[in-house]
């Protein structure tokens, strides 16, 4: 560790007379530029060609449904919050509002649960269901804190990044839309991102290395992905 002195006459020599007379500095610069004439294109032809976002990408949110890959303590959480045990295809959200508590802008969320209106002898008597889950994504800064707080891995980030709308109304998503977004995302890319307990596995890749559009930005020579650590497969 030390100090390195830089400056003209220290690590850079001033121009010599020959360089000045023969414009060698410009020649060298032009050489670099001409070299680039023969390189392949590195830009992506958007929107005809799309780079697939990385698995971890924090795009717009989705609400996952029950699909058999819940965490082990899912049932315990459902019981604790007196939620009607969800069936296959119903939302995983238990209305705990942890996401809202973790969010720096809690006004984004409106989460409400309501008691089921069933007779007293019904097994679901006294239990609740999620009745409203609205998110106003125009206020969101896609920081990811809500998804880390969710105990059931219900609220997730998907890879969708185009959320333009002519009105502010278009940025307010309700629970049906959010569920659909999540279902669609899980069907497309769930296997890349989550293991069978909805956790991030250690084989989750930095990005899909077969993505040819992304390879273009890497001079058509993308890195070969391998394990990070000594004991990783």
């Amino acid at each position, binding site marked *: *560790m*030390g*100090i*390195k*002195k*830089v*400056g*003209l006459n220290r690590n*850079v*020599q001033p*121009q010599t007379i020959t360089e*000045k007379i023969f414009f060698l*500095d*410009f020649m*060298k*610069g032009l050489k*670099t*530029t001409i070299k*680039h004439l023969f390189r392949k294109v*590195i830009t992506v032809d958007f929107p005809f060609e799309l780079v697939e*976002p*990385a698995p*971890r*990408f*924090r795009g717009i949110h989705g609400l996952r449904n029950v699909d058999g890959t819940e965490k082990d303590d899912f049932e315990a959480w459902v019981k604790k919050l007196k939620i009607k045990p969800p069936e296959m295809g119903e939302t995983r959200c238990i209305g705990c509002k942890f996401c809202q*508590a*973790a969010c*720096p802008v809690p*006004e984004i969320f*409106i989460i409400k649960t309501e008691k089921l209106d069933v007779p007293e002898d019904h097994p679901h008597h006294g239990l609740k269901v999620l009745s409203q889950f609205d998110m106003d994504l125009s206020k969101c*800064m*896609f*920081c*990811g*804190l*809500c998804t*880390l707080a969710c105990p059931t891995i219900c609220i997730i980030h998907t890879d969708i990044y185009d959320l333009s709308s*002519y*009105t*502010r*109304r278009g940025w*307010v998503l309700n629970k049906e839309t959010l569920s659909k977004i999540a279902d669609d995302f899980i069907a497309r890319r769930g296997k890349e991102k989550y293991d069978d307990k909805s956790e*991030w596995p*250690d084989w989750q*890749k*930095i*990005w899909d*290395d077969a993505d040819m559009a*992304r390879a273009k*930005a*890497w001079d058509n020579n*993308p*890195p*070969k*992905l*391998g394990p*990070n*650590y*000594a004991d*990783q497969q």
Partner: protein
Amino acid sequence: MSWITLDKINKLKEKFDYVEVVENDKGFHSVEVPKENFKSFLRFLKEDPDYQFKMFIDWTIIDHGAKADPRFQGVLILFSPEYRERIIVKTWATDETLPTLTDMWAGAKWAEREAWDMFGIKFEGHENLVRMFMWETYPHHPLRKDFPIKGYEEVELPSLNEKERADQLEGLQNYSRMHTALPTLEDLEITQKKRMPNKKSQVVLNWGPLHPGTHGTIWFLFDMEGEYVQECDIIIGQLHRGVEKLAENLNVQQIIPYTDRMDYIASINENHSVCVAAEKLLGIHEKIPEKAKYIRTMMAELSRINSHLLWLGTYALDLGALTMFLYTFREREKIMDIFEGITGARFTINYFRVGGVYADLPYGALDAIEHFLKDFPTRLKDYETLLTRNRIWLRRNIDVGIITEQDVYSYGLTGAVARASGVPYDLRMIDKYDAYGEVDFDVPVGEKGDSYDRYLVRIEEIKQSVRIVQQCIEKLRKMSKNDPFFYEPEDKKMKITIDGRGTKLFKGEVYAGADNPRGELGVYIYMPKDGIKPYRFRLRSGAFYNLQIFPKLMIGRPIADAITILSTIDPVVGETDR
């Protein structure tokens, strides 16, 4: 740790009986001095050969609430380059006034204007105490504790509420028609006039606020004599969002995404400052898991490369070399890809947490970084052949905007700007936070302090960053996938979570930070008692203090140099305005 020792503080107390020592269990001791003796005490600190606190770091205010009497307290942070120590000196602002420090440190000028703007403290003797961020006719002082976080909603602004076919949003998610005060054209004119009270020429040249050369929304005023600038002033604040005010209502993990939006070019480094400061306040910085330390160091250095590449590209573009911009953006794209894969976002990253990072590296991350580093040095050489000894480049940079060593101390300049003037001030060396104590790198320092030196220093910094990243990769490769990346507190009283819920800060105060591409982003946290929300969260922005020297460098220079000087100072408006 680069803090004044208790010994030396106690000696101060022996010498001056009015000095009160505030001891801190984490080692961040401070002294309190009455207002009458404040200036003479500071003069002693600055000049005495045993102390030599000649470098200005920060000068700000704490509001102790409307009930407290006296209510406001001035907090001055100084650094002694000789002994590599910092000190905090506090004084009570009785009658809401304080003596000005502008005659001792030129850097206090903007700091005092900011304190007037945000807290309404008058500084006796300040040459032109106008507002810093807000416009001149703005009636409030927003950082006072009695100012509501939402502001006072005073004007109607229907355009924000336009909806298709009058479709109403139901419930809370509708937008209020009322908006906090906005400046009118007259307000702006008054502001502009007040900033330049003694203009000489007929026309003041306005540059910005929306001009590609200003790299953001900065508004420059030039009083010209022909081609030459006679007087110059800067109006900033167009991007002021009150991050300090917002931070007072959030827990510390929730503040981190807001800092992403400050220096958005190097958001990782902004996150880093907050993490380091909060960890030091909690006393856990040394105990952060090894893996997290190396990941953070590696990412911070990648981010430095990223930021310097953007600086190089736009700087060359401003001086007329368009190709450079395209070349550097090509390399930047790869770093952004790496960030996207590891953290989940390309720009506003929010990956670091107080206590570590939020997730381990994904499969293939280190390979991707290594792959990038493999051909990066040759690319960097290409850039250098294009620029370093090009005659136009030399002519436009050499001897432009010379900053002396004295200026560095007096204005509190940090980062590459300070180092180019021959001051080896680098927090990575002084504080050795995270893994910087364990990796090998050199700190480049310049000779003259002109724009060309600043260029060379940054280029050398890129090379050193590459070295640091390589060493971090080597270290990380040897670790196990099961090593922790987040600190689990042993202490029952402490609670730190990855998502931030319930994360608590301890009573005390701290000033710490990280060396960012744009200078030192220091974080001063003041907590009168344990709690979740910081009572005072001061962000000492490097870009803000670096920009302050711009008017001085411009005086007597032709207007074309404004581009060179601004580019080599390299401010980012998100950070200057906060």
